[in-house]
Every structure is written in C-alpha cells, then in structure tokens.
C-alpha cells in the first residue's frame, strides 16, 4: 500500500479530486490531504474516494510561528483529523513536534532554518512521531541549493537509521503535475542514497498511520486493545460463545 501526502487547493494548484485522479492513475493506493491549517480544502472524501478508487485521508499540517500557538492548533485539530502533521523547518517547531505524542508526522524538518539532532531523534522515537523525508527539493531544485538539501537529507537519514525513528516519505506535491509515481520515487531515492525498501516503507507508513487513527476515531474504540462491542449484533463479538 503506497500513499502520497499532498497539498490541495487553496494550499496548492489542484483540487483534491484532480490529485486523487492522478494518484490513482500513477498507482498510489491513497492520498493524504495535508493542507495547512490556515488553508483547508473543501471536499467530500467519500465521494472522491469512490469516484477515483483511491483512499482519501483527511489530514492537517499545523503551521504556527511558535510552539504555544502550535499546541493550541494541535489540540483543536486532533479530535476530528485522521492524520495530524506539524509544519517543521525551525528548530523550535521541530523540537515541539517530536515532543508531542499527539502529533503523527513532523513534516520536512530540514527545510529553511530547520535542523535535526540526536536529542530530537531519540525524542521522536520515544513519542512515535514520524519524521518526513521530503523529496520535493530533490525533484525540483538544482545547483547549490539542491546540494545542501541532499546533504541535510543524508544527515536526517543517518540519524533516523541510528535511532530507529519511524519515518514517512513524500514528494510533497502541491499540484497534480508535481506528483511522481511510486516507482519513480524509489528510483530517485536510490539515486540519492536511500534503499528502495526505505522509500516503499516510508510511502506505506502514511497508510498505516491512517488506518490506526481511523480505528481510534471510530465510536467503538476505548483504548488500545479495548473495543466496545454491540451486544445485539452476535457477529461483532467474534468469539462464538456467550
């Protein structure tokens, strides 16, 4: 199962439907619509999913100037969002994201002034916060800027490997033209030092987060391992004896 995490209108240039159509065509099993919190998309996930035969996961990428503001946004969005990411790229926001177990994904931690180190890596692993490898800059930058981005991706990869931090991979497309098929992403990953399995695992991880969180959001969920079962429906108990 491969998923891609996209930015749709008004955050990007394409609607959720167009991104879903293209992703389905490219062989993805799902799209995670991770618009920034201040530019949420207006769409019907079920209708899009049914029409284009691709899983559509509602998500939010929280973007804030400082951790206290971000903390409020995370609290607001968490109860009804399937996947919650934090817009990384500054030392303070990276630090904030990896310390919150309520956060699913720290998006592009190395962008801009962002950096990552062993302290953040241990913290992310302890809290189960996935760190994103964003291939966006590799795909459309050139020259010195791309060299620096490749260097920071390598640093991040080495830390993630060493501390066994969970991770996701994305080309972070803001339009259907920036989408690339899974096999292409694997090929690009291999060209810049990732293994093919790492890229595939990272793309599939979005789907694993989505299915885990959907279970948690469902009415029958009480806590991990505990589920409320309707007594009037014998098929739901599953154990066959009363």
């Amino acid at each position, binding site marked *: 199962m491969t998923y891609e995490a996209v930015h749709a*209108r008004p955050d990007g*240039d*394409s*609607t959720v*439907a*167009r*991104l879903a*159509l*293209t992703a389905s*065509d*490219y062989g993805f099993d799902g799209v995670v619509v991770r618009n920034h919190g201040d530019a949420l998309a207006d769409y019907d996930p079920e*209708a*899009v999913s049914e*029409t284009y035969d691709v899983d559509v996961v509602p998500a939010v990428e929280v973007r804030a100037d400082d951790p206290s503001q971000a903390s409020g946004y995370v609290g607001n969005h968490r109860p009804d969002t399937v996947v919650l990411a934090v817009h990384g790229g500054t030392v303070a926001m990276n630090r904030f994201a990896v310390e919150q177990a309520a956060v699913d994904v720290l998006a592009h931690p190395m962008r801009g002034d962002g950096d990552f180190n062993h302290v953040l890596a241990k913290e992310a692993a302890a809290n189960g916060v996935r760190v994103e490898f964003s291939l966006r800059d*590799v*795909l*459309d930058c*050139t*020259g010195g800027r*791309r060299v620096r981005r490749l260097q920071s991706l390598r640093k991040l990869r080495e830390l993630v490997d060493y501390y066994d931090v969970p991770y996701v991979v994305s080309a972070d497309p803001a*339009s*259907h*033209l*920036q*989408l*690339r*098929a899974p*096999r*292409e*992403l694997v*090929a*690009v990953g*291999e*060209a810049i030092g990732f293994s093919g399995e790492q890229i595939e695992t990272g793309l599939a991880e979005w789907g694993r987060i989505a299915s885990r969180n959907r279970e948690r959001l469902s009415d029958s969920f009480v806590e991990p391992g505990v589920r409320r079962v309707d007594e009037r429906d014998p098929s739901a108990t599953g154990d066959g004896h009363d």
Partner: protein
Amino acid sequence: MKHLPKHLRQRWRYLGVAIETWPDAAFGRRDFQRELWYAAQNLFGDAGSADLDMTILRFDLADGDGAAVVRTRRGEEPRARAALACVAAVDGDPVGIRVRGVSGTVRACEENYIHRRREPPDQRHVAFEDAEEPAVARDGKVDVRTPEGYSGATTLDFQ
C-alpha cells in the same frame, strides 16, 4: 565505418513516458530533450549522464497532454526513471511525468504504452470557486484558467 556485429551492438531499452502539463504549454521535442539531459547531468554528473545516453525518439504534445519514447541503455532503466522524475518544468511550464512502461523495441513501446490521441479537448466555461472561468476539459480532467494561473480540477468538482 562498418557497423558492429550484432552481438557487440549496444542494447537499448525504450521507456514509454506520459507527459502532462497546462493546456497553454508549447514546448517541443528539443526543449524536452534539453531539460532531460540537464536533469540527468544534475543528478548523475557527466559520467552518469553519458551512461544513461537518454534520447527522445518520439514526442507528441498537444493541449497539455503528451507522450514520448525515451531511449536508454539496457540496465540503466532505474537511473533513467530517476532522471525523468527530476524534470519538474520545461521552458518554465511545470510538467507531470510518468513512466508507463519499458520495452525492448520502439514498436512494442508505442503499441503498449503510448495511447493514441482521442477527441480534441472541450473548451468551456465553468463555475469555479464563486467565479465563472474558462476551462479546458479532457477525459474527465478539467484545467481551469483562473486569474492567478491554471488550476487542476475534474468533472467531479462541477457536479
């Protein structure tokens, strides 16, 4: 010069590539070839680019929908894929690129992976985000010309 005996000739692989862009893009084969060479060179250097030896044999683009057959050395397909994926724009027009498949002959590549052009796209006006905008529709895809540039949508957005 006398050509090489068959067992010594270079073996090629042909990649069937689907190209998507905004309807007003008007780049041609040479522009695409140049961007592809740059992409390969930027990613793999001169030596790698020489190994890939990517050449565009067929190219067709109209109204934002196109296809190409790209030749590369046998065994270099994964790196050729990576170079193709790194072509983000041609002549300033953003492009979506996907390798539909790889074949051992140009003919098989064209037959299996290059689809013949269907009817010309449909020009119409659509109600998009509270405004009436001109749009180009094709196969359920709708490219809307908004004041800030093109936006990608589908027929589902106008139901």
